């Protein structure tokens, strides 16, 4: 392998450092913040590859939207001493196996791809304009299908969020029942 450019090395170092902090930190909110920094450096990686749209979308969706959701959940859960994470051996074994197999798959994939991982097939493929042409030409059907997928996700979110899928009367009724019992 030829010498890697210095920006790539610096960014990779930051990314890996933050990712390690995400898993080792005791405080979940710190983990989320480290993950945000990791996403930033991944976005910078995309910029280096000239995949500008991907870079900014990574920032908007992951760092901007999904992490806000994570923080919402974490900040509002009871993170006191009572909520220590489960630490049984079976749990540790299961996570070790799943993480290990993921590592195996990723390593195998990297080995196969060789040097292509860091080589951009073409200088302009990541620009918004070209991306749009591909998305609305070649990949139109998958694109439309994601629309259907989103509806599924929304149904799931609403069902989870509102717990009983009924209208207000029934939810009010359920609350009353809960209060009386």
């Amino acid at each position, binding site marked *: 392998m030829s010498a890697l450019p210095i920006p790539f090395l610096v960014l990779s170092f930051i990314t890996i450092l933050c990712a390690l902090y995400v898993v080792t930190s005791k405080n979940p909110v710190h983990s989320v913040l480290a993950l945000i920094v990791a996403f930033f450096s991944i976005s910078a990686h995309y910029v280096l590859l*000239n995949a500008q749209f991907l870079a900014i979308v990574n920032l908007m969706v992951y760092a901007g939207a*999904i992490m806000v959701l994570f923080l919402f959940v974490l900040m509002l859960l009871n993170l006191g001493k009572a909520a220590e994470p489960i630490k049984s051996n079976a749990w540790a074994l299961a996570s070790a196996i799943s993480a290990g197999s993921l590592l195996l798959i990723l390593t195998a994939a990297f080995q196969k791809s060789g040097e292509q991982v860091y080589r951009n097939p073409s200088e302009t493929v990541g620009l918004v304009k070209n991306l749009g042409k591909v998305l*609305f030409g070649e990949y139109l059907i998958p694109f439309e299908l994601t629309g259907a997928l989103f509806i599924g996700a929304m149904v799931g979110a609403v069902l989870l969020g509102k717990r009983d899928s009924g209208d207000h009367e029934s939810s009010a009724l359920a609350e009353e029942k809960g209060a009386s019992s």
Partner: protein
Amino acid sequence: MNQPSSYIPILIQIAVAVGFVTIALGLSHLLGPKRKTTNKDENFECGIEIQGDARFPVSVKYFLSAILFVLFDVEVIFFYPYAVNFKEMGWEGFLAVSTFIGFFLAGFIYVWKKGALEWEK
């Protein structure tokens, strides 16, 4: 302007902003008086004694709006590559994106009808 190097000025600006914030916070830390008392270091809740911890679970509506935001935001982002190519694609592209907006609206109306956007109750 399509090269990664055109992002270097942004890096400079981030560095300047971070530098300014660090210096100003450091300065105010050094210059300000430090007269700590136990009462002063308590949280301020209008002078009433603090009741319990401030980290408590709040209404699920906030989570719900955050989840819905994530979903809709991804859909909105899909429109950007289309908008840039809008003129070249003509009616064909418009039809494609209208179908997608149809899905968007279907989801939106579902969420609305299910009352996920209600805040009065």
